């Protein structure tokens, strides 16, 4: 799709960025100590911290990624919302208060509070860095995706812009400014998402999403020996065919423009979207250069049914009838495929009419229905396991427990977070489905679904939602970079290497670490362009759950846990989780290889790496018991 920047959108965007920088400067002047920089002095009120938790957590993955995934895959995208929220239950009931009692600046403080082990320090710092970087990638990808339509700039400029601003914020201020930025952004995100959902539900469901929506043509084809020989409209000529796995695509030409169509079993040809790369490198969008704007936004209803009767539109609905109408009706989705035809590489998105009950049930993305393989089912369980156990092990979530004054404040802020985040995740269902049927989807970027939905309600709404989404990325990236800099300055240099610096110097080292992490994030954000950000965050959750959670849980609840057990468990968790991700089918596609050639069939490593990390901790702990001085867990009695 072609995006053009609007002056209003640019103005609101810069106003939001200016507000974020203003908050940073204001609090930055007051931050001089390490405790102030890494933990906001432990002075944040629980209610502010709760919404800031939501701000931290409702990242690009939640807003851009989940809405996009729901818009393209229905209920399967909503499973991410459910899993992300469920993880907070682990944080609240098991981790929040004990961790607050045991730690100071970082979660390594808590892990090491009983042992004084350099091994734990080193591995916890490495784990924090690895998880933060994996979590940073999708945020930067999301930033790049946003800046393109908002400011009309290329993806890499968006990534660099976010990286630059965040490095500036983090190096000038620290955890206090990050907290207030998150608070503001979390609150704005929820308020404007409510407005957007109200608009979506009030608009209802239409046969044709809006005036000017591209009318996708259908033709009748006659076949001889499985090949198309004539068409119902003689203005089209047949230029090629491609058949694969039961799919049959036909290349037709009219008025000198060639495009690919999908041949259905009934003999009907339906117009598709395609991006064709020719042998000389020329790229054609629906047979023409991108500037000709023949590559349309898509997503519409096929048949609308209300209480068993077919209608042309279902006007102003409520939050239940909106879902019920989609459940009864049929939606046109655009399914992606890639093939080589002659010397052309073709990326095609063909129409598929999907019943509403399939949209609102599992199976469109995760192949877990009848006939799915064991590996596909395991992949799904693995993801849901990682989402459930990942939240309570994310470094940027854990450090927020040190910004409040007491364990009970940590608990209360977690409950505020659960309520705010849970409410927002219910809204994602409406925003995603709204985008799916509003004719706004950019098939090249699922991440843009929510902002483009907002655009269907006018430029002002688009500008506000995009600016908030951008602030979302800024806030989350700031939190992650503070967590990373704490891992380097406090865990690695201070506690592992034993270099004793003054408070002021420790903050300076932290700021240098922030710059380094920010630069790495920029480079990776450019490299991973185009991947769905919710999927990428799912990987960060799996690494966090594998590396950190077994140690946290067993330290709290198993008396025989030893320092060596924790060190070995974190090591095993990181290596197994990252190793499996690198050998997964999705990454093989990223390397330009066949997904089927990947040596490991799962995309998400959780189901292997989480139990492995638990097992390693138990075995190594049992092997390294000190019989003279049995360790007693005093996790909750410090």
């Amino acid at each position: 799709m072609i995006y053009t920047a609007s002056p209003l959108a640019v103005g609101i965007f810069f106003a939001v960025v200016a507000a974020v920088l203003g908050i940073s400067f204001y609090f930055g002047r007051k931050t001089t100590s390490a405790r102030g920089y890494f933990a906001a002095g432990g002075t944040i009120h629980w209610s502010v911290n709760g919404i800031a938790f939501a701000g931290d957590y409702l990242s690009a993955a939640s807003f851009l990624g989940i809405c996009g995934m729901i818009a393209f895959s229905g209920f399967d995208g909503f499973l991410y919302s459910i899993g992300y929220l469920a993880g907070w239950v682990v944080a609240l009931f098991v981790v929040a208060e004990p961790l607050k009692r045991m730690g100071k600046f970082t979660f390594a403080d808590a892990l090491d509070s009983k042992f004084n082990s350099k091994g734990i320090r080193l591995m916890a710092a490495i784990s924090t860095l690895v998880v933060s970087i994996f979590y940073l990638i999708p945020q930067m990808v999301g930033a790049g995706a946003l800046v393109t339509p908002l400011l009309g700039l290329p993806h890499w400029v968006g990534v660099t812009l976010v990286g630059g601003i965040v490095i500036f914020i983090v190096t000038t201020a620290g955890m206090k400014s990050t907290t207030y930025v998150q608070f503001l952004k979390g609150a704005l995100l929820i308020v404007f998402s409510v407005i957007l959902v109200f608009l979506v539900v009030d608009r209802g469901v239409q046969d044709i999403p809006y005036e000017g929506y591209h009318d996708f043509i259908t033709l009748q084809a006659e076949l001889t020996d499985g090949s198309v020989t004539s068409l119902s409209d003689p203005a089209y000529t047949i230029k090629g065919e491609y058949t694969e796995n039961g799919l049959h695509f036909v290349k037709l030409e009219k008025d000198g423009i060639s495009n690919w169509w999908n041949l259905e079993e009934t003999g009907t040809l339906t117009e598709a979207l395609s991006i064709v790369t020719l042998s000389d490198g020329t790229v054609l969008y629906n047979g023409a250069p991108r500037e000709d704007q023949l590559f349309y936004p898509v997503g519409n209803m096929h048949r609308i049914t209300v209480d068993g009767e077919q209608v042309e539109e279902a006007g102003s609905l409520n939050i239940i009838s909106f879902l019920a109408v989609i459940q009864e009706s049929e939606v046109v989705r655009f399914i992606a495929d890639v093939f080589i035809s002659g010397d052309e590489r073709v990326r095609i998105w063909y129409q598929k009419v999907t019943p509403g009950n399939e949209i609102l049930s599992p199976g469109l993305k995760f192949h877990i229905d009848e006939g799915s393989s064991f590996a596909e089912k395991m992949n799904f369980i693995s993801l849901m396991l990682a989402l459930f156990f990942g939240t309570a092990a994310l470094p940027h979530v854990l450090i927020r427990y040190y910004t409040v004054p007491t364990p009970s404040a940590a608990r209360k802020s977690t409950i505020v977070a659960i309520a705010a985040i849970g409410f927002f995740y219910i809204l994602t269902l409406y925003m995603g489905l709204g985008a799916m049927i509003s004719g706004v989807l950019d098939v090249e970027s699922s991440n843009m679904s929510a902002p483009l939905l907002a655009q269907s309600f006018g430029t002002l709404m688009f500008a506000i939602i995009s600016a908030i989404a951008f602030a979302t990325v800024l806030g989350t990236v700031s939190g992650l970079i503070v967590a990373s800099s704490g891992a380097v300055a406090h865990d690695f240099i201070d506690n592992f290497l034993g270099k004793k610096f003054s408070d002021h110097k420790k903050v300076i080292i932290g700021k240098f670490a922030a710059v380094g992490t920010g630069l790495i994030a920029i480079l990776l954000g450019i490299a991973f362009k185009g991947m769905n950000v919710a999927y990428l965050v799912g990987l960060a959750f799996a690494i966090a759950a594998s590396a950190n959670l077994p140690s946290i849980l067993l330290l709290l609840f198993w008396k025989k846990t030893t320092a060596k057990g924790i060190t070995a468990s974190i090591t095993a968790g990181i290596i197994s989780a990252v190793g499996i991700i690198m050998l997964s089918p999705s990454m093989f596609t990223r390397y330009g290889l066949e997904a089927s050639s990947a040596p490991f069939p799962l995309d998400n490593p959780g189901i292997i790496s989480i139990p492995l990390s638990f097992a390693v901790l138990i075995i190594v702990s049992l092997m390294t018991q000190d019989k003279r001085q049995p360790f007693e867990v005093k996790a909750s009695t410090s």
Partner: protein
Amino acid sequence: MDHGPAVEYHECEELLKYKQKAGLRLFFVYSAIYGIFVLLNTVFPRMMESVVFFGLNLAIVYGIGLIVVAIILGLFYNHQCTKMERRLDTSGSKTLRGSE
């Protein structure tokens, strides 16, 4: 090595044990509800299509229900903990080890 808590808290053993036990109980309750949801999706995905009420299917009702239940359990847990903290009157007693 200075990596102990930034703030020292004085909560009595009884309160800590109560909170830990209550937290674990609710954690297992929620884990069971979540586990059944994952299992149903994996083993009986077609069952999730069945309409439960108001034209909404089991997948949507269970999915939104999981979010709502998490909020309710959280509020219940906080209520119980706060009640116990008030009864034992120990929460909030703290000693700052350092300040900004």
